[in-house]
């Protein structure tokens, strides 16, 4: 499947990925409007971790044996048959946080108002995830894992 | 093995020497050397004994070999030398040990101008130059590491070195036997007495010098030497406006 | 000797100052008898006349090898003068350096279409022994070439347009067939004939600028333009060749002289230097050939002739037809028995040789070479003697 590869040594900590993730998952999809009106209600699916000069932007790894899918009691967490992405169906999520408990990279967050889980969906609506598109330093690369 | 340098151009002579070592020789004696340049360039091992006066850039970029000169040497001895040993049974010309990064150079008598310029140490590379006689001006300019010792053995009352000693020096240490006048020193150098640790490291070097040239180490005592060290590792740190 | 050999005053025909590099389209034709047989210039005149459309009347000329057997060890200097004064100055230079064995006006036939002709003289000379001694490091050819260079550089109204042994160049402003008639070319017999019809575009044409261009035994006729002229010229300057005529044909002759005579390169290698294979082709060659090609290209970059050209080069023992490496100018060749024909158009060959044994189109960068057979030169001379 196509996944986002993280190149830690290229991450410059600008957080444009977070910004564009938020915009992409906003209703308006307009950056200024999204920030003015929806900023509080969206949890980006990508988070930049920083320590000294080291940083990287981490989002769901869409694991092959995704522990979050195994741990999900409602079936809300599922693998999209087409893209193979791990997707959280927020309509079915009841917020039991089992997925949060088992995600080894802490890529699943308690979503808007702490009701349901929120995570990277690889920007189902875009051809290439916006974090990748907007990374100015190619610290995020969207590629087929056959390349691995 | 022995090579006669008479009538051989330096390029061919060097080829012969390299070939001799490549064919397994441990030592090559070169007779009738007279101005042949670049002897021992880049050599990693083996020993060259030179009878005569080798030309400039003796042992340039040398990387572990040993050269014994039974005679005087010209300019540029040990240019950018990395490792090895050069022993000169006589005097040497200018710019001895330029940018020398490692290895040792022992000169029985005096050396010319700019000896030890840009000498620098790095990790296990530690260059040493010992001059038995005196050194002319600009000794140890821009020196960044290693030991430069001038023993002033043959010259009576003369000062061990000329003027502008250690200009731009930012590492390493110079030991001079005898006195130094303040005007002789570059601005970047400080003058001190030797401490016990200095004497120890200098002592072993002097021992080696005495072994090479059959001298008596007992003639040296700590009090005869002064020590020159850089005042800063950043001599020109405040030269510019940012 | 002061009067032109035919009517009308000499005039601007010699003015070559401030000219840019000549640019032109042209017709070329060359015939060689490889067995050394001598034949009349009438043949080549017919051939070149066939391509009248390619010329515009502003230049025509011939080179002929084997025409002066009685002077075969003398340099035949063909010289044009603007004025008697120029002739005096020039002859002084010649006399200083050479023994003149014979001197005369070049025989011409008055022709009213030939206008503004210069004074035309020829001298059969050898370099003086004392000069040979003085310049012991130079060959007689070198000294002769220097003399020609000196005259052509220093004397503004004097111009040596032919300087080989047992050969001669005849050229001027006009259609080639008129020039041929003017110089009475049909009266000479040669084993190589090279002809040129000229179509200069940006100059009115001047006598010296007509083709063939010659230096010592070399003569060159040329169709096209050498885009690399600027560097070829500077490259040649490195070796003492100073291009005085601002014509790219000149550099071709010099390069031939340099590569073949001075550098002693094999003919094929010299051609390779002038029209080398592409690097991609070189990559595909067998190792030894690749090394040769790489070396030649690397060393002789300044001799590479770039731009569209086809040339026929004559020299004492042969004739070479030669194209730029991507063949931007036309060239056809044919053989019939011992004769080699090279021309811009096939018709120019069939005009004079209706049924050749073989006809082919030249390949870019690959020389067409005619060589005198062993002993042929002697037989050529013998024929005349006989």
């Amino acid at each position, binding site marked *: 499947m196509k996944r986002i*590869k993280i190149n830690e040594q290229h991450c410059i900590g600008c957080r444009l990925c977070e910004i564009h993730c938020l915009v992409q998952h906003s209703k308006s999809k307009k950056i200024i409007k999204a920030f003015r009106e929806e900023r509080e209600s969206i949890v980006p699916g990508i988070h930049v971790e920083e320590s000294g000069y080291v*940083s990287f932007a981490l989002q769901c790894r869409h*694991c092959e044996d995704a522990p979050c899918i195994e741990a999900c*009691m409602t079936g809300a967490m599922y693998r999209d048959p087409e893209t193979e992405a791990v997707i959280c169906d927020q309509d079915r999520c*009841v917020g039991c946080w089992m997925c*949060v408990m088992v995600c*080894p*990279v*802490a890529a699943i967050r308690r979503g808007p108002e702490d009701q349901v889980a929120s995570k990277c969906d690889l920007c189902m609506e875009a051809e290439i995830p916006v974090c990748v598109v907007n990374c100015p330093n190619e610290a995020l690369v969207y590629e087929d894992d056959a390349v691995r | 093995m022995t090579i006669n340098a008479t009538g051989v151009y330096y390029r061919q002579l060097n080829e012969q020497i390299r070939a001799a070592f490549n064919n397994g020789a441990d030592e090559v004696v070169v007779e009738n050397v007279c101005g042949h340049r670049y002897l021992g360039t880049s050599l990693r091992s083996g020993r060259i004994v030179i009878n005569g006066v080798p030309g400039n850039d003796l042992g340039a970029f040398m990387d572990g070999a040993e050269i014994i000169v039974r005679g005087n040497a010209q300019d540029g001895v040990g240019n950018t030398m990395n490792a090895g040993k050069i022993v000169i049974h006589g005097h040497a010309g200018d710019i001895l040990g330029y940018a020398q990064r490692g290895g040792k150079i022992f000169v029985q008598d005096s050396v010319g101008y700019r000896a030890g310029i840009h000498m620098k140490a790095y990790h296990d590379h530690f260059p040493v130059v010992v001059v038995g006689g005196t050194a002319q001006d600009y000794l140890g300019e821009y020196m960044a590491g290693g030991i430069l010792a001038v023993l002033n053995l043959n010259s009576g009352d003369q000062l061990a070195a000329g003027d502008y000693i250690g200009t731009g020096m930012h590492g390493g240490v110079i030991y001079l036997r005898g006195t130094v006048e303040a005007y002789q020193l570059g601005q970047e150098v400080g003058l001190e007495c030797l401490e016990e640790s200095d004497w120890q490291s200098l002592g072993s070097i002097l021992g080696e010098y005495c072994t090479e040239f059959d001298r008596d180490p007992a003639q040296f005592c700590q009090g005869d030497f002064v020590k020159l060290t850089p005042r800063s590792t950043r001599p020109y740190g405040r030269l510019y406006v940012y | 000797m002061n009067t032109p050999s035919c009517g009308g005053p000499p005039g601007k025909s010699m003015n070559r100052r401030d000219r840019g590099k000549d640019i032109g389209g042209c017709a070329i034709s060359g015939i060689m008898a490889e067995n050394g047989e001598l034949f009349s210039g009438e043949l080549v005149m017919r051939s070149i006349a066939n391509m009248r459309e390619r010329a515009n009347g502003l230049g025509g000329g011939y080179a002929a090898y084997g025409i002066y057997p009685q002077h075969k060890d003398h340099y035949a200097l063909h010289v044009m003068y603007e004025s008697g004064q120029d002739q005096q100055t020039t002859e002084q230079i010649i006399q200083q350096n050479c023994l003149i064995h014979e001197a005369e006006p070049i025989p011409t036939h008055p022709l009213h279409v030939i206008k503004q002709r210069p004074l035309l003289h020829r001298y059969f000379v050898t370099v003086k022994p004392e000069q040979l001694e003085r310049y012991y490091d130079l060959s007689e050819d070198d000294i002769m070439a220097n003399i020609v260079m000196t005259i052509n550089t220093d004397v503004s109204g004097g111009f040596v347009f032919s300087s080989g042994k047992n050969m001669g160049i005849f050229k001027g402003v006009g259609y080639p067939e008129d020039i041929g008639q003017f110089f009475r070319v049909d009266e000479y017999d040669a084993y190589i004939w090279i002809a040129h019809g000229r179509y200069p575009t940006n100059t009115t044409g001047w006598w010296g600028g007509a083709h063939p261009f010659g230096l010592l035994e070399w003569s060159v006729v040329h169709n096209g333009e050498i885009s690399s002229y600027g560097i070829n010229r500077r490259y040649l300057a490195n070796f003492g060749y100073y291009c005085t005529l601002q014509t790219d044909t000149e550099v071709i002759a010099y390069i031939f002289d340099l590569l073949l005579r001075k550098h002693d390169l094999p003919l094929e290698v010299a051609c390779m230097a002038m029209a080398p294979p592409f690097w991609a082709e070189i990559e595909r060659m067998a190792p030894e050939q690749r090394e040769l090609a790489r070396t030649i290209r690397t060393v002789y970059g300044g001799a590479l002739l770039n731009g569209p050209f086809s040339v026929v080069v004559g020299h004492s023992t042969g004739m070479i037809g030669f194209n730029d490496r991507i063949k931007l100018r036309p060239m056809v060749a044919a053989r019939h028995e011992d004769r080699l024909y090279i021309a811009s158009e096939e018709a120019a060959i069939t005009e004079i040789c209706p049924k050749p044994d073989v006809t082919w189109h030249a390949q870019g960068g690959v020389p067409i070479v005619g060589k005198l057979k062993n002993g042929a030169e002697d037989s050529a001379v013998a024929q005349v003697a006989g």
Partner: protein
Amino acid sequence: MKRHPYLIIGNSVAAIAGVEGIRQVDDDTPITILAREPHHTYSRPLISYWLSGQVDDGDMFYRPEDFYEQNRVDVILSQEVISVDPQNQTVQTADGHRIAFDKLLIAAGGQPIVPPDIPGSDADGVFTFTTWDDARNIRDFVTQQGVQQAVVVGGGLIGLKSLEALVELGLQTTVVELADRILSATFDQTAAELAQTMLEEAGVTVLCNNTVAEIATEDRQVKEAILHTGQHISCQLVVFAIGVRPNIQMVADTSIAVDWGILVDDHMQTSVADVYAAGDVAQAPALLSDERRCIPILPNAYRQGCVAGQNMAGADQLYRGGLVMNAVDICGLPTISVGMTTPDNEDCEVLTALDEEAPSYKKIVLCDEKVVGAIFVGDIDRAGIFTGLIKQEIDVASCKELLLTEDFGVISLPTEYRKHLVSGMGIEV
């Protein structure tokens, strides 16, 4: 007799994982499921959400409606298996059928424990809380009888989830826990207190160090619960949530080895070849322990079922061992506990950070510089990292002082581990 290439007893998480595991290896051989309950596969843990009305019928199902067709599963509902004959490779159902199999997966789950010696425990109004039908019965009972008060026996996970639902239904509730704190199996005192406070703020009465001795009835109807200490608590409903026992009766007296549950090896195979067990019924290898244990939690059930299914279909998949862990949202307070949270080992190092205001509590248990257990109350966002560290047995000496900090993250971890996680595409867990 028709033989079933793959026969699965059970229809919950382990069974479904078994189907999915088989299908990862074998695309088309038919699979047969024998289910005791009459429902399409549904999520057991959701019953508390269903009971409280947070989830409706349609959302109860664990897999989409066409799951069985998509996976070519022949599902036989309401068919309880009463015994397994491993020698003849058959199972016997309650209604007398014998069904032959090539490979069998026992994913029969567990049975809630109801202490038989408590008087009144068979009265109307006494329930357990493990199946959808349990939840339906409770809801029907509450509605029909106008229940006002309820007592939940057991302050473990099921007890608390049922409590929460009952509170949602508007009942006045009391929880009675035998141990000195609620969630005693996974929580320490501090975490339990924070949780208890949340419960109490929601109106729940929490009684620890206590248990129900008797259920007083009237006309078979529950009237009150009488505690060990003599205290009487008026109630119309009692829910027993004191644990689950594996359903091992069906293999009793067979060559299939059992202990507390059915013993399986690290391929989830029982002591008999071609017979596998997974989920709450299985006693499988466990992380942080040398013994095999029953750890009846959903993620383990899934993994076990999946491993069993893959191996049944011919793969050679290893079960790396279960880990005790729980994520519970207690009246809006998220909590997560993983691994060994209250160490009995002296050598363990314990790091804690408590903020009672938030409230937030973090506890990390380290043994030999490796994390072996963790509790998170309130701020649980990064808990998964610790689960990973426990599973992967990562030496955290280099980042120990960062473990409890605010911005602890993947970035704080040893570079090699981080590379594996971050530069690698996927993570094998």
